[in-house]
């Protein structure tokens, strides 16, 4: 899908379940920060996603879901780990995952500005440059 105003391409983002990090993610999608103006929209289909955002802890169930989703994503997929739990365990250090990550964003939770910065590091065309 192409958007001449926002950039060369809309990027679809698949997000894992979380609670506290999801709070800031919702704020990032809202009118003040509005990541959609940078070309990022959310999707629920792994086959449609360009970016997997891992946030929150990985328990067995979520890890299985995430690994399945990652395997179903198309080629050229990227992964962003958002929040201390996703980056290094955080409150749940006993949880482990084995998905390669392109960008880590630490914070508990990371601010919307940090999320935007991480998204633009992966897809710089979103900045409009």
């Amino acid at each position: 899908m192409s958007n001449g105003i926002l950039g060369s391409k809309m990027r679809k983002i698949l997000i894992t379940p979380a609670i506290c990090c999801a709070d800031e993610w919702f704020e990032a999608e809202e009118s003040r920060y509005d990541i959609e103006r940078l070309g990022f929209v959310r999707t629920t289909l792994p086959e449609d996603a360009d970016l997997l955002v891992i946030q929150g802890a990985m328990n067995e169930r979520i890890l299985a879901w995430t690994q399945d989703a990652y395997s179903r994503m198309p080629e050229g997929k990227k992964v962003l780990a958002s929040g201390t739990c996703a980056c290094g365990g955080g409150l749940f250090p006993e949880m482990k995952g084995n998905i390669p990550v392109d960008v880590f964003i630490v914070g508990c939770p990371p601010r919307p500005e940090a999320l935007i910065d991480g998204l633009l590091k992966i897809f710089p065309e979103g900045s409009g440059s």
Partner: protein
Amino acid sequence: MNGEKTFIEIPAFFAGSQMSTGPLLVSAKSNGIEIQEAQAEFGFAHRGMLDLISAKTWERGRFYWSHLAPDSAPQVEKVFSEWVESGLRIHVPQRANEIRNLICELADSSRLLKCLAGCFRHLGISPARHQVHRMREGVLDLFELMTGSRHAFYFIQPGGVRWDVSDGFLSRTAQWCDRFEKDLELLQEFIHLVQVTNSALDSLGRVSFWREGKHGIELGVVSRMQVMIQQMASAAASIRAHVQDIAKMTGLNQVVGVYAMDWVAPEHEDIQIQHESLRGRWTLIAAPDANKGIRVRRLICPSYFGQQWIQESLLGAQEKDLPLVLESLDVSSLEVDQ
């Protein structure tokens, strides 16, 4: 006390949102000398939360409460701090209390706004949802102005708060209250319009509330939104009152409490609390003083939220030691080494 059931109520954490709990209640039965039975209840905590916090220390468990219910973090911190303060008889300055209450009211408003936005999301009314999130951003800005963080600020600590309000915070909060109340009126009108134009909407999302062992009233989503707005209007009035009270407390002689991780209880100079933050342990070290009649113990943590542990640890304890045990439970959270 012989053979009678002694009810001992210990304040515990509570979350102000969907994971609300009551106090930790320990019922003990003694023969006048020893505790023979004990039953601990955690109030209304969700079972998943109980599973999650079992075998965690109080410090770590507090993180769970704070993070899994982010908007209730200040309330959790407040309860924890009051718990420590009551056990150690720490006096908190009035200004610090007012600041605590102010931040808890703001957190409650933030929670209600998030719930309201969720309701608009379910109804598919996106513009209203965006507006409510924008209102919530105003609250998060105030948090950041006061504490330096939008979420999980750990601002309320035993002894008071971390620091005094920053310059301009009170006037900014007062302006926010004015704007917030006007926005709430607009939302109220909008929701009324929604209800009038489509009465079928109120049948959506009906939730029944379980009270006193039976189902209580049922409210549809639109009615719940009206209740939330009324709660927020009440919170705004309360916030305005707190701002005015804090503004009257001029001069730094009304000092906010210190960050009391290493604290010497003022009435008992021999008592020290040491907190090993890395391990989340509280250690109460005290010296016996015949004049003051302090029976002291060296109390060692870590400690656990486990109900079973509480029950087992009290069995065989001397009833005459109970106040000290409870006080140690208040402070050290469950593990006593005599």
